[in-house]
């Protein structure tokens, strides 16, 4: 146990200092951490799943709290600037914006949503495995004519129906109907459900019967499933890139903004399949990641043109498709994307150009965005926009009313509403924005949307 505490604390410190870059890396590290927590967690014989869920929730709470998003970021930043400026320090300009902003050099470290996503995924895995084991155990018990439990004799005639029906009913409450569950073969779910009391009795007794064999199995299954999850996260780029050939055709012009590894892999996969196309890369002020992307694409032999962000509207009339990556996909199908993409999406809609978003499933967040421009945003250092030295003579905070004449706003993210997104390409295939809620039903449980332990 102390081992896991140390690991968790180490990861929390990394998250707070924003040393982890990129949502994929964050997701992978979170999943691995949770896997070690599970494997080292000692679980009691009864209510195993609940114990596991509790443990994961406590760790998850810590992880999610480690990466807070600034609320009312604009006012906070302005107040910080004002406060520091009153002390009259020129060199404090950059400190005033929050020292931690400076530590972030390149690569986004807005991993808070990814951390929460993975925690919820693992919780859902635990619930699912527990349920499938219960179903299998009960199914196996009912198939064998001999019952260990003498109290079961009086209910001989009903165990098949009751237990299986209870399991099916439980599963249907756990997982709202999604495409996968609808297509699953559940012949015994059509049977009439018995009275709940008898069903509960047989369930409880059968549970106590093979606890010992299940105790090892639950953990084992959960760890296997988490391994699969880690594997999925690691290969999400390849799976998305496999679909590139269907979407990019000969002599097309693609527009993108900023830099995203998923987009690079996507475009290069199409290039390898001998499609020839051109790419316009918008710079992505103020970090100008577009330059990095363009260099990378040129190195791989793609014809690239770099344009300023302001020229996006001008060029988009000659573009066939816009392909971008996202940081997070919200439950309504909207995306949190690098700043400037809302503008690009609007221009694409205006010119009827498809706006395609590439996102791994680990970026899918079960939360609905409320006021996302402010609440799900981060404001970065204004030194990226303005040199303090240039404006030091304009900013005279010592005299007069004392409130700052100049605010500099440098948000990191943009919210793009779902109606502007034409297509999501994820590692499970292409989806419409309105299909996102179904994917959430598949990957997350409704109980886990708020990762907080109930006060005991």
């Amino acid at each position, binding site marked *: 146990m102390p081992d896991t505490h140390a690991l968790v604390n180490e990861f929390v410190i990394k998250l707070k200092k924003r040393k982890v870059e990129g949502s994929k890396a964050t997701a992978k590290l979170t999943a691995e951490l949770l896997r070690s927590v599970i494997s080292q967690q000692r679980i009691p014989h009864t209510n195993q799943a609940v114990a596991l869920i509790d443990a994961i929730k406590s760790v998850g709470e810590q992880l999610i709290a480690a990466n807070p998003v600034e609320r009312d970021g604009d006012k906070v930043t302005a107040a910080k600037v004002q406060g520091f400026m009153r002390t009259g320090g020129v060199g404090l300009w950059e400190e005033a914006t929050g020292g931690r902003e400076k530590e972030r050099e390149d690569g986004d470290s807005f991993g808070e949503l990814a951390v929460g996503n993975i925690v919820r995924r693992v919780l859902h895995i635990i619930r699912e495995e527990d349920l499938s084991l219960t179903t299998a155990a009960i199914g196996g018990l009912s198939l064998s004519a001999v019952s260990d439990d003498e109290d079961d004799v009086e209910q001989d005639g009903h165990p098949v129906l009751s237990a299986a029906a209870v399991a099916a009913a439980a599963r249907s409450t756990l997982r709202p109907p999604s495409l996968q569950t609808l297509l699953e073969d559940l012949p015994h779910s059509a049977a009439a459900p018995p009275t709940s009391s008898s069903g509960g009795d047989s369930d409880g007794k059968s549970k106590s019967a093979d606890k010992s064999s299940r105790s090892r199995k639950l953990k084992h299954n959960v760890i296997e499933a988490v391994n699969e999850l880690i594997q999925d996260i690691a290969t999400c780029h390849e799976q998305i890139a496999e679909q590139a050939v269907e979407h990019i055709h000969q002599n097309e012009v693609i527009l993108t903004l900023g830099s995203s590894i998923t987009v690079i892999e996507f475009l290069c996969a199409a290039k390898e399949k001998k499609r020839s196309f051109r790419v316009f890369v918008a*710079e*992505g*002020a*103020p970090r100008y990641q577009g*330059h990095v992307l*363009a*260099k990378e694409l*040129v190195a791989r032999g793609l014809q*690239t*043109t*770099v*344009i*300023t*962000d*302001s*020229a*996006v*509207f*001008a*060029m988009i*009339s*000659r573009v066939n498709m816009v392909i971008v990556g996202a940081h997070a996909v919200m439950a309504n199908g909207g995306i949190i994307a690098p*700043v*400037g993409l*809302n*503008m690009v999406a*609007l*221009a694409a809609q*205006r010119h009827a150009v498809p706006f395609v978003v590439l996102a791994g499933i680990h970026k899918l967040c079960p939360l609905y965005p409320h006021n996302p*421009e402010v609440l799900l*945003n981060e404001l970065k250092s204004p030194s990226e*926009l*303005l040199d303090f030295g*240039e*404006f030091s003579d*304009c*900013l005279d905070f010592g005299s007069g009313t004392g409130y700052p*004449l*100049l*605010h*500099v*706003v*440098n*948000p990191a993210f*943009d*919210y793009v509403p779902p109606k502007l997104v034409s297509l999501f390409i994820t590692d499970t295939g292409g989806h419409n924005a309105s299909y996102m809620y179904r994917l959430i039903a598949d990957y997350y449980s409704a109980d886990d949307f708020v990762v907080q332990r109930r006060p005991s």
Partner: protein
Amino acid sequence: MLEAFQESIKDYSTPPEKALIRDLTAKINCYVSFLIECRPLSISMGNAIRFLKTRIVKLPLTLSESEAKATLLSDIDRFINEKIILADKVIVRHAVTKIRDGDVLLTYGSSSAVEMICLHAHDIGKQFRVVVVDSRPKLEGRLLLHRLVRKGITCTYTHINAVSYIMHEVNRVFLGASSVLSNGTVYSRVGTACVAMVAHQFHVPVLICCEAYKFYERVQLDSICSNELGLLSDYRLYWSCFLMLWMVLHYPCHLSRSVIHLMCCR
């Protein structure tokens, strides 16, 4: 440019056995082609040159050389006074009535008309804030920011990508224009259309401030048909790229609430 033409007319003298009108017109054409070599003409410059040539052609033949020159010089002075200086004053007077106390205005790049509006409104005591949106490669917004902050106007400075973030605070968008075309399209600095588009999404009124001498009888659908490529050295990159300096705003009437201009005596 007009003042340069004034100087050249002052120094001009008709060579013997040549008509003033034709010779002067030929000289002006020379100057104009030299200017075009340096940089493509803006639409307002084209309009001014057309005005000057019309005045030269309409000169009565009975005038002596000095009288003709004096007439031309006074014509150019009148043009500058009426169409540029007075026009700006009237625009500012109209526009200031659109600014209420407590407003947050947004402007893009650096437009002289918008700057005059802001300064005048501040002078007459209106309380408002200005958001200056800037973009590469020219980063003209910084100059405007300097001038506004120096006068004591509270400003917010941001880059064009952040326009979606800041637009929810904004009440009005004031934009300058290089020209307004016949189909209502506004021709302005690259990036203006993006700002107008986002303003439209957030239901913020967009006001274009453009003097009448910049109007032009041409129609254009998008920004690529006729444009000007900027200097690569402005861009600071290692490989080939091209960038647009001017840009066309698609401008159906529902996108903006009003276009302020001055219809002067034509």
